[in-house]
């Protein structure tokens, strides 16, 4: 009886209810190899000891259950829209709650009902939703942007545009030629470029519009929007989704969100005069992260803020380097790879970076860039971003090349997909311009998309890479954990979880030519273009964030104990709820890997 009382979700019931429910329980014993079907008995079964595998009609493993876990075959079958069978894989003692009592408990106890409301994917999503209110500055731009856009043609008269703006009560108008965004006109332009300049209101609006627009992606945080506005000294930012305009965010939209620590931190970073100053400033970051986690900022937002911080540090180091070494002889672009590229950094991330030089670069120019790269990478290391073990750094000549060499290399990788090449591409495809001429980065990314998306052999090799690690489904029974070293009994959440999701998202994105880098944005784009079912995309995204949240919580815990950040979670110390979520996340990843296998490696074994 004590056992039932401790089992989810029975632990939410009061004692008298629990006793009444326990009186209706039946105890059964099943031998290894026995197969239970919905017909025999029914009701909710709780595993007291032993282990049970749940499989669908195709005999695909849905879940493996151990002590304290429960299942209801008939409900699983109706939720799964398929028959579900349970096989005993280790002699099992089961407690069976008859369907009538189960129904009654669900009707009378909300928490109990909520627990069983639907199958695991919903359970996970709900857990994500119950995260506390996000930090104001960490919300996505799309949550505050104005979608009621005024768009005008370039040849429209200024007076007509001004009239429409007054009618629509908006402070800006976007000038579009068909689908192409040309520029923006704001209240201030009407004042400064028309009235003050004495220009005729009949002249076309294209005369006064601001051209080079600085846009922001819909998923970016308000915090990034503030930074962009400060940097470009503007009050209106067009919000882009998949390369097309979807809204506008203004300074007044941002005023609604209170300014807070991260903004100031990044502004301070950009004002530091030397590496020691940066170092000093960044020492406080783990402490801040702990505060953010405790304040309930979501994992995806913390990782965006942390990426923005490392971007700011990199940019500042590059500026300091250029001050020391003089201006660069040819244009270049500093690239962020891996988690920095995807804007999914957490604490303890190592550097993954590279450089693309303009094609006009000559061998004689390389010493300059080598010195610059050394300065930046050394600086990053001393600021808490350790050197990359795999030598994926701009200091390595292989990762510091002119555009055309990069493009040739990409061609070579995709024609002979050796494991090394596949590994490089998986790093390289998560690429983002951090500083310098971003056109170089975009050109490189376009080459990669063009080359890879049509190359099915390459995609198959990349799929093999994505399927290389499998999620530790049976973890809570047989501890699939690091077997040696200081991390015994612990699970590498990055290697066995997060990486698997990012690999899957990258593969699909590459196949469908999607330019997004951030895993969430990739999944959303895949959902929009129909490459992934809505439910699959959302499940994967939820799984990723469940893992990231556990990682972050773990890092915050380490920080409180004064230990350096790592990704090794001791699963024995996890709360029951976290275990359930972790298991759900792994099941979802497992399903997604099956999908990858079907799509890219059919017949390849």
């Amino acid at each position, binding site marked *: 009886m004590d056992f039932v009382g401790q089992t989810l979700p029975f632990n939410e019931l009061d004692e008298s209810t629990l006793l009444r429910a326990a009186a209706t329980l039946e*105890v*059964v*014993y099943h*031998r290894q190899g*026995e197969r239970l079907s919905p017909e025999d008995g029914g009701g909710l079964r709780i595993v007291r*000891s032993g282990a049970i595998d749940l499989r669908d009609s195709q005999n695909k493993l849905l879940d493996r259950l151990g002590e304290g876990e429960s299942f209801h075959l008939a409900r699983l079958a109706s939720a799964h829209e398929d028959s579900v069978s349970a*096989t005993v894989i280790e002699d099992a*003692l089961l407690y069976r709650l008859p369907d009538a009592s189960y129904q009654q408990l669900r009707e009378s106890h909300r928490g109990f009902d909520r627990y069983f409301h639907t199958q695991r994917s919903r359970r996970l999503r709900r857990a994500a939703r119950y995260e506390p209110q996000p930090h104001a500055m960490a919300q996505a731009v799309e949550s505050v942007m104005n979608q009621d856009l005024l768009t005008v043609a370039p040849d429209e008269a200024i007076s007509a545009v001004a009239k429409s703006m007054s009618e629509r009560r908006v402070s800006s108008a976007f000038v579009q030629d068909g689908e192409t965004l040309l520029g923006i006109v704001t209240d201030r332009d009407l004042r400064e470029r028309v009235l003050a300049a004495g220009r005729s209101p009949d002249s076309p609006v294209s005369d006064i519009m601001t051209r080079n627009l600085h846009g922001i992606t819909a998923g970016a945080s308000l915090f990034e929007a503030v930074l962009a506005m400060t940097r470009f000294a503007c009050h209106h930012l067009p919000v882009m989704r998949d390369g097309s305009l979807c809204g506008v965010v203004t300074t007044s939209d941002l005023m609604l969100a209170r300014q807070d620590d991260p903004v100031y931190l990044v502004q301070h970073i950009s004002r530091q005069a030397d590496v020691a100053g940066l170092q000093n400033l960044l020492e406080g970051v783990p402490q801040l992260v702990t505060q953010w986690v405790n304040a309930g900022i979501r994992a995806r937002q913390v990782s965006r803020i942390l990426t923005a911080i490392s971007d700011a540090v990199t940019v500042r180091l590059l500026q300091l380097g250029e001050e020391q070494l003089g201006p660069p002889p040819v244009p270049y672009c500093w690239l962020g790879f891996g988690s920095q590229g995807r804007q999914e950094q957490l604490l303890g991330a190592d550097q993954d970076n590279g450089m693309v030089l303009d094609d006009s670069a000559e061998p004689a120019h390389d010493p300059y860039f080598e010195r610059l790269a050394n300065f930046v990478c050394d600086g990053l290391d001393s600021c808490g971003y350790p050197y990359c073990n795999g030598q994926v750094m701009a200091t390595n000549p292989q990762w510091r090349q002119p555009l055309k060499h990069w493009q040739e290399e990409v061609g070579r990788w995709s024609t002979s997909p050796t494991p090394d090449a596949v590994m490089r591409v998986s790093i390289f495809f998560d690429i983002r311009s951090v500083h310098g001429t971003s056109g170089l980065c975009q050109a490189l990314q376009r080459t990669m998309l063009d080359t890879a998306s049509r190359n099915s052999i390459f995609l198959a090799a990349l799929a093999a890479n994505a399927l290389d690690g499998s999620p530790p489904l049976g973890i809570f029974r047989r501890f699939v954990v690091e077997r040696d070293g200081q991390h015994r009994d612990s699970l590498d959440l990055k290697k066995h979880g997060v990486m698997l999701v990012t690999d899957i998202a990258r593969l699909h994105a590459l196949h469908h030519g999607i330019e997004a880098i951030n895993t969430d944005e990739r999944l959303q784009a895949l959902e929009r273009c129909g490459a992934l079912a809505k439910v699959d995309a959302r499940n994967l995204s939820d799984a990723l964030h469940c893992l990231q949240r556990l990682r972050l919580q773990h890092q915050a815990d380490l920080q409180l104990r004064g230990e350096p950040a790592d990704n090794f979670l001791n699963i024995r110390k996890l709360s029951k709820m976290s275990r359930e979520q972790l298991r759900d996340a792994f099941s979802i990843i497992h399903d997604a890997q099956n999908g990858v296998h079907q799509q890219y490696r059919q017949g390849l074994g």
Partner: protein
Amino acid sequence: MWRLRWRRHRYRRQGRGDALASCWEAPLPKPRQPWHQQGYLVCDAEMSSLELEQGELLSLGWVAIDAGRIALSSATHCLIAAQDTVGQSAGIHQIRDCDLRQAGSEADAIEQLCLAARGRVLVFHHAPLDLAYLDRASQRCFAAPLLLPYIDTLALERQTLARQEGGPRPGQLTLAGSRQRYGLPDYPAHNALTDALATAELLLAIASHRGGVDRNGNCQPATLADLLRVR
């Protein structure tokens, strides 16, 4: 079964009280039927001493098995008012004299047991001890021993282990030791009801292991005779 009938016949005339008589009227089990088609009542008794002459019953616990399933709704725990004080055994059973004050008489307990046992096979872990006390109680109450068919899980386990090399080792035949062999979880021991439940789970495990599972995952149950044969 014929022996049971013959012995009951000897006591039938002198016996008194309805509860036991009605138990005897119920049909005796059919050894050839699959084990789970028979009902069982798994019992455990706590007493103040292991010696019948010095001890008395302190509590009875039982739980029923029907259709191969333990029904927790049948779980019953009877505390018995002791004539002497509980003495040393309190340390083992955690029954104190003050608990026993709300307890019923031995006669009440044995009568309730008989009502629950009608048509069922009794199950004990180490039957001789429990039965000695229960038979004495029954003699006092009904002027006859219980004379009900029973299964002894300890005897079943001893038989299984005897076939293995070296025979049973000390501690292997205890309730906890036997349960461990079947991968059953640990329970706090020495409460009549929890011990009865623990024994019931052990019986399910033993019965399952004396049967088999075919290739399609269907159960091939053992017969009742497979469980009754040992004495």
